[in-house]
C-alpha cells in the first residue's frame, strides 16, 4: 500500500471503510509522521496519542460490527485541531501562557461533531496567542515553521493547522478565521482553507478573539476534502446564539462538480497591483485567465471602501478582544500570579495578566481599551463600525454584478521568521485582502495557484461569495484546481521539499 499519509481524506475514508487499512493503522501512520517531522515543523502544541488511537479503534469496532454503511464520510480520517477549540480533558492553551495547563471540562461543538463523525483528532495545533497574528510567531510556545522552507513563517494565526496539513502530518485540520487566519496560512503553505459564512459553524467552545468576526472552518490539501470537513462541522447549534438556523449550503455537491461556465467572476480592483509581490500578482493573473478559458465571464469590479477595511478591523478587533480577554484574570482558571495573601484582587489580576499575556495580546488589549475610552469611542470604534457598513455595502453592490469575487489571498509569499516581528503595522498588512470578508460575514476560500517565480513559494487565490453561498467557493475552487492539476501533472505539495 502507498504511504497512508500522502492520501487525500476522501481516499483514506474509503480505505478504512473498504477494510484495506484499519483506522488504527491510518492513525498510527500519521502519529509516526508527526514523530518524524514535527520537531522541525512544530505544528503541534499537544499530540493526543492515546486519545487518537482509542478514537480510531472505536471506528474499527463500529466497522467490524455494522460494516461500512454505518460509517460517516470521514470516519477514521485523522485531523489536527487548532488549539483555540475546547476539547474535553485535552490541554487547550490558545498559544498563551495564561491558559497553560487548562483542561477543558467540555467539548466545543466543532470538536463534538468531529468526534461524532468518527474523525480522529490527533492533537492541538500551534497558533499566534489567542489568534492574534499572521505568522504564529506570537505563540508563547515558539513559532511553527513553513514546510516549504523551515526558515519562513507558515502564516497565522492558524499556522500550525496549515503546516500540519502541508507537512502530511494530517490530511485535515480545523482553523479559525477572524481576519484571515485560515486563508492566509493556506496561501503561504500551498494548501486549501475556507472561512465559512459567519454563523455557519458554531462558535460554542471556540475561545473568542473577536466575537463578531471569528469563524471556524476547514483546512485541507484539496477542495473536496475541505468540503467534506465543512459538511461535518457546519449547521445550526442552539448553544451559539449567532449560529444561523438555515440548511448548510451544498458544499460537497459543489466540490464534486467544479464548473465555472457562465459564471460571472469579479476581480477586485482595490486588492491588486501596488503592495502585491510581482510573483503573487503574476500567478493570480494567470489563474484569472484560466478561469476565463474555463468559461467564466471575468470583469473588474470596484469595492471603493476596501482600502479602509484594514484600519476598521484594527479598531473593531482590539475593542472586542480587550473585552473578551477580560475573563482571563486568574480567578477561575489558568494562571494566577502574586497571590501571597497580602495583595488585593486587583493587584493579583494585574500581575497575572501582565505575565500571562504576550506582547501582541497586550498591545491589542491596550489599543482596544483606548478605542473604547470615553472621548475616543465615536472617533475610533464608532467610525470603524460605519466603515463596516460601507464594506458590507461594497460586497452587496459587487454581488449585483458578479457571482463571486477573486483576489490574491495574501500580498506576499511566506516571509522569513523574525522579518516583521518588530513592526506591528507591517505584520497587520498581511491580512489586507482577507479582512473585508470578516467584516461583512461573507465566506472566502484560498486555493494554491502556483509558485512565485522569484522565490519558488506558494501563492494563493482567494474566492469570495455572498452570505450563505459557500457552495460557490467550492464550485469555483474545484474547477480551478482540476485545471491546474491538468497543467502541473501533480498536486502542488508534491513539489515541496522532503522533510
Amino acid at each position: 500500500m502507498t504511504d497512508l499519509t500522502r492520501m487525500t481524506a476522501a481516499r483514506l475514508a474509503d480505505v478504512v471503510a473498504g477494510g484495506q487499512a484499519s483506522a488504527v493503522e491510518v492513525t498510527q501512520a500519521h502519529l509516526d509522521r508527526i514523530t518524524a517531522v514535527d520537531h522541525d515543523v512544530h505544528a503541534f502544541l499537544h499530540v493526543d496519542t492515546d486519545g487518537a488511537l482509542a478514537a480510531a479503534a472505536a471506528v474499527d469496532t463500529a466497522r467490524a460490527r455494522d460494516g461500512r454503511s454505518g460509517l460517516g464520510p470521514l470516519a477514521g480520517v485523522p485531523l489536527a485541531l487548532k488549539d483555540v477549540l475546547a476539547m474535553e480533558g485535552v490541554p487547550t492553551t490558545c498559544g498563551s501562557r495564561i491558559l497553560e495547563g487548562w483542561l477543558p471540562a467540555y467539548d466545543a461543538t466543532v470538536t463534538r461533531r468531529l468526534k461524532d463523525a468518527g474523525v480522529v483528532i490527533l492533537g492541538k495545533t500551534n497558533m499566534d496567542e489567542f489568534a492574534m497574528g499572521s505568522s504564529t510567531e506570537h505563540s508563547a510556545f515558539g513559532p511553527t515553521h513553513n514546510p516549504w522552507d523551515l526558515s519562513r513563517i507558515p502564516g497565522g494565526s492558524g499556522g500550525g493547522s496549515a503546516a500540519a496539513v502541508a507537512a502530511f502530518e494530517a490530511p485535515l485540520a480545523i482553523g479559525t478565521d477572524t481576519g484571515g487566519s485560515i486563508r492566509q496560512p493556506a496561501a503561504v503553505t500551498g494548501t486549501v482553507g475556507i472561512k465559512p459564512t459567519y454563523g455557519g459553524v458554531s462558535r460554542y467552545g471556540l475561545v473568542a478573539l473577536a466575537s463578531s468576526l471569528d469563524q471556524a472552518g476547514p483546512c485541507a490539501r484539496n477542495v473536496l476534502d475541505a468540503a467534506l470537513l465543512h459538511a461535518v462541522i457546519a449547521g445550526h447549534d442552539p448553544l451559539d446564539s449567532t449560529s444561523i438556523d438555515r440548511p448548510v449550503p451544498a458544499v460537497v455537491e459543489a466540490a464534486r462538480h467544479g464548473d465555472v461556465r457562465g459564471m460571472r467572476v469579479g476581480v477586485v480592483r482595490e486588492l491588486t497591483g501596488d503592495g502585491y509581490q510581482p510573483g503573487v500578482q503574476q500567478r493570480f493573473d494567470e489563474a484569472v485567465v484560466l478561469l476565463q478559458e474555463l468559461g467564466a465571464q471575468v470583469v473588474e469590479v470596484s469595492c471603493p471602501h476596501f482600502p479602509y477595511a484594514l484600519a476598521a478591523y484594527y479598531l473593531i478587533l482590539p475593542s472586542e478582544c480587550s473585552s473578551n480577554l477580560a475573563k482571563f484574570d486568574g480567578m477561575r482558571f489558568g494562571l494566577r500570579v502574586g497571590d501571597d495573601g497580602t495583595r488585593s484582587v486587583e493587584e493579583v489580576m494585574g500581575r497575572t495578566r501582565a505575565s500571562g499575556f504576550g506582547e501582541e495580546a497586550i498591545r491589542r488589549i491596550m489599543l482596544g481599551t483606548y478605542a473604547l475610552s470615553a472621548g475616543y469611542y465615536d472617533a475610533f470604534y464608532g467610525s470603524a463600525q460605519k466603515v463596516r457598513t460601507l464594506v458590507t455595502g461594497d460586497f452587496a453592490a459587487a454581488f449585483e454584478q458578479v457571482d463571486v469575487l477573486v483576489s490574491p489571498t495574501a500580498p506576499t509569499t511566506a516571509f522569513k521568521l523574525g522579518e516583521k516581528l518588530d513592526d506591528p503595522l507591517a505584520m497587520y498588512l498581511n491580512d489586507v485582502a482577507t479582512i473585508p470578508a470578516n467584516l461583512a460575514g461573507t465566506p472566502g476560500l484560498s486555493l494554491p495557484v502556483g509558485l512565485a517565480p522569484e522565490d519558488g513559494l506558494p501563492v494563493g487565490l482567494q474566492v469570495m461569495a455572498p452570505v450563505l453561498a459557500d457552495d460557490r467557493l467550492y464550485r469555483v475552487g474545484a474547477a480551478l484546481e482540476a485545471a491546474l492539476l491538468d497543467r502541473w501533472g501533480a498536486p502542488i505539495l508534491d513539489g515541496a521539499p522532503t522533510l
Partner: protein
Amino acid sequence: MPAISPEQVAHLAALARLDLSEDHLGRLAAELEIIIASVATVSQVATEDIAPTSHPLPLTNVFRLDVVGGSLTVEQALMAAPAVESDRFRVPRILDEES
C-alpha cells in the same frame, strides 16, 4: 489626533488590569501612537449619515427552549481553578482592610 502621553498609557493599563513596567509602558506609548495614527483613516469616510454595523448577522433576541439541560458539576467547574475553598473559587481580598 492627540499624541498619547505616558500618563494616559499608564491609565489604560490600569483600566485593563495590566501591571506593566515603565519600560513596557514607554514602548507601548510609541507603538500605540503609530498604530492609532494609521487606523484613524476610518474617520475619512465615516460620515454622520452612515449607520454603524456592530455585527454581520441581523439577529435579535435569539431564545432557546426553557428546559433543563446538562451543566458542569461543581467538581468540573472548579477543576481548573487556581485556588479552591469549600467548593468555591478562593480569590484574594476584594475589600481594603480599613473599609
